[in-house]
């Protein structure tokens, strides 16, 4: 398909506003200001655009949840936290086409009548935060932001807010807490952010890629957008392919292509002529798929039917040399480090999984371990925690145990007992030496 979100990739000086304007940039913003907020929301609703951050919730519906009669301020937040392992698409958009994000933020803010928008970007992305700030400054200078924009009497300020190293702040309510200057602890829902969001005001949170779609929908129409992809899974999607492939990278494809096409055609197949063993279809929080499931469609509904999720579109590929017990261990380390610690099942469960998997990898597995892992995962998922991080570690780990159980059993059969020395009763995080770990 012709590139939409990545059309600027490879264009010289693609970040400057001059290049963006020459390619028809900010036409959507001008058109939206003429249409009015309700017509803009209706167009996005009709396009059937679904959130690209992971949950796949219809964007137009999210916007429509903001109370119409709310008297005070309201906010639009762009989620550029991009921390899901295997995901590096938002960085690609910001790197080549930051104005696309600024325009999307502007249109979405107008649709929900927000005069202030924040772009929350992960702390590690210092360079990309600067790129966004420069783009915002350019847009303001040209009169696309600020007071009385293009004579419409609509005012908008966009601010970039940098995180400081916390995966959990990609979760929308933790992100709001972080903007408010607090620890990134997710909030209980309801109330939903559309009613009580940042600073207690109605707030819509959309992913970078979601917002980047919006100017195109306004300019080219909902019918054009929904003609791409499959019913209820419309539009272009950025797939990030990493791991054991010949050409890792970001590929823009219609929703609904198969993972086989993504991995074999676009990413050049498994590298070194080896065989595919397994892949995460949508970041490491999605249950893993085996080589036999590679014909699964890469869209929200097909992934759900296959018992996994499209998530953020981060496809992590493993070849047949990979030990799946070690993959489960790596995943457990990630989530044990990133659990915010509010809810017992997630805080303790992710640590226990890590401890057990570390022990199996070290050659001291016990016969009961696979079932213990599954029990911990069951205890931590399906609504046992405030936010989805409980599921985010439980689902991939339990899927690996279930699908590759023989690998666990083989290791355990060859295991030796743990040397008898005093073991710590509870995991102890200890003082932090800084910069994590």
């Amino acid at each position, binding site marked *: 398909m012709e590139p939409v979100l990545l059309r600027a990739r490879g264009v010289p000086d693609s970040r400057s506003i001059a290049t963006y304007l020459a390619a028809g940039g900010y036409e959507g913003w001008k058109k939206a200001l003429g249409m009015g907020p309700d017509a803009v929301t209706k167009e996005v609703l009709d396009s059937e655009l679904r959130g690209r951050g992971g949950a796949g919730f219809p964007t137009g519906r999210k916007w429509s949840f903001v109370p119409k009669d709310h008297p005070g*301020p309201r906010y639009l937040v762009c989620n550029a936290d991009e921390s899901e*392992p295997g995901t590096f698409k938002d960085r690609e958009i910001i790197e080549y086409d930051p104005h696309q994000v600024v325009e999307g933020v502007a249109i979405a803010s107008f649709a929900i009548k927000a005069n202030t928008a924040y772009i929350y970007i*992960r702390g590690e992305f210092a360079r990309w935060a600067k790129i966004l700030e420069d783009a915002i400054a350019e847009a303001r200078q040209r009169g696309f932001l600020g007071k009385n924009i293009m004579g419409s009497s609509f005012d908008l300020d966009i601010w970039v*807010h940098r995180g400081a190293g916390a995966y959990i702040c990609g979760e929308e309510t933790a992100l709001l807490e972080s903007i408010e200057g607090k620890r990134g602890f997710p909030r209980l829902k309801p109330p939903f952010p559309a009613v009580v969001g940042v600073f207690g005001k109605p707030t819509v949170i959309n992913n970078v890629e979601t917002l980047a779609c919006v100017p195109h929908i306004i300019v080219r129409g909902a019918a054009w957008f929904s003609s791409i992809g499959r019913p209820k899974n419309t539009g272009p999607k950025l797939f990030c392919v990493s*791991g054991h492939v010949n050409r*890792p*990278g970001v590929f823009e494809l219609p929703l609904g292509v198969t993972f086989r096409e993504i991995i074999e055609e676009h990413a050049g197949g498994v590298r070194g002529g080896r065989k595919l063993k397994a892949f*995460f279809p949508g970041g490491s929080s999605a249950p893993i798929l085996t080589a036999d499931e590679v014909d699964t469609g890469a869209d929200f509904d097909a992934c759900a039917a296959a018992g996994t999720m499209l998530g953020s579109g981060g496809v992590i590929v493993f070849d047949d040399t990979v030990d799946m017990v070690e993959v489960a261990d790596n995943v457990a*380390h990630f989530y044990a480090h990133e659990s915010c610690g509010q809810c017992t099942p997630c805080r303790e469960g992710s640590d226990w999984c890590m401890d057990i998997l570390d022990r199996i990898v070290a050659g001291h597995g016990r016969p009961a371990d696979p079932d213990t892992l599954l029990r911990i995962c069951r205890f931590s998922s399906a609504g046992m925690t405030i936010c989805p991080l409980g599921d985010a570690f439980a689902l991939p780990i339990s899927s690996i145990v279930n699908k590759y159980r023989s690998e666990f059993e083989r290791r355990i059969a060859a295991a030796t007992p743990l040397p008898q020395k005093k073991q710590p009763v509870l995991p102890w995080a200890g003082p932090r030496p800084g910069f*994590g770990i």
Partner: protein
Amino acid sequence: MNTRPIVAASPEALQIVTFDAAMEARIAELLPRYPTRRAAILPVLWLCQERFGWISPGVVAAVAARLGEAPAFVEGVVSFYTMYQTAPPARYVLQVCTTLSCAWCGGRELVAHLKERLGISFGEITPDGTFQLVGVQCLGACGQAPVIQINDDYYENLDIAKLDAILDELAGRS
């Protein structure tokens, strides 16, 4: 790439911190962006880390006083986020991604090599104060695995030879 070294102020110099006019000007720029002063905590801490190299208890107290918060609240924020340094860092902090794609595309070999070459483990600093080795979680650049972030800069598609050349250059410069 021209990675700037971190210049960390000494613990003695950061016992009692006062903000100079330049710092105050930047804080004044930040405050109108938010309806509460508390919301400026993260950006002000970033300013401090840029200026002093790390966040000492004295910096926490100064930020708290400036924004009208209790020092304990600011300390709570600092301790939640991994990127705020709470001890003087080395001039170059090597943050090696240890998550899935990086780990299986050469990251583990880079870690082993770094530990051997520098003679330190995760969290430690070389005796000359040049390098600090930190294992971090996903840096969001999986297509360019393996990746190391050095201070603010990303170094991508690394192998041991490229990494050695980078370290030689940084060590020579410092």
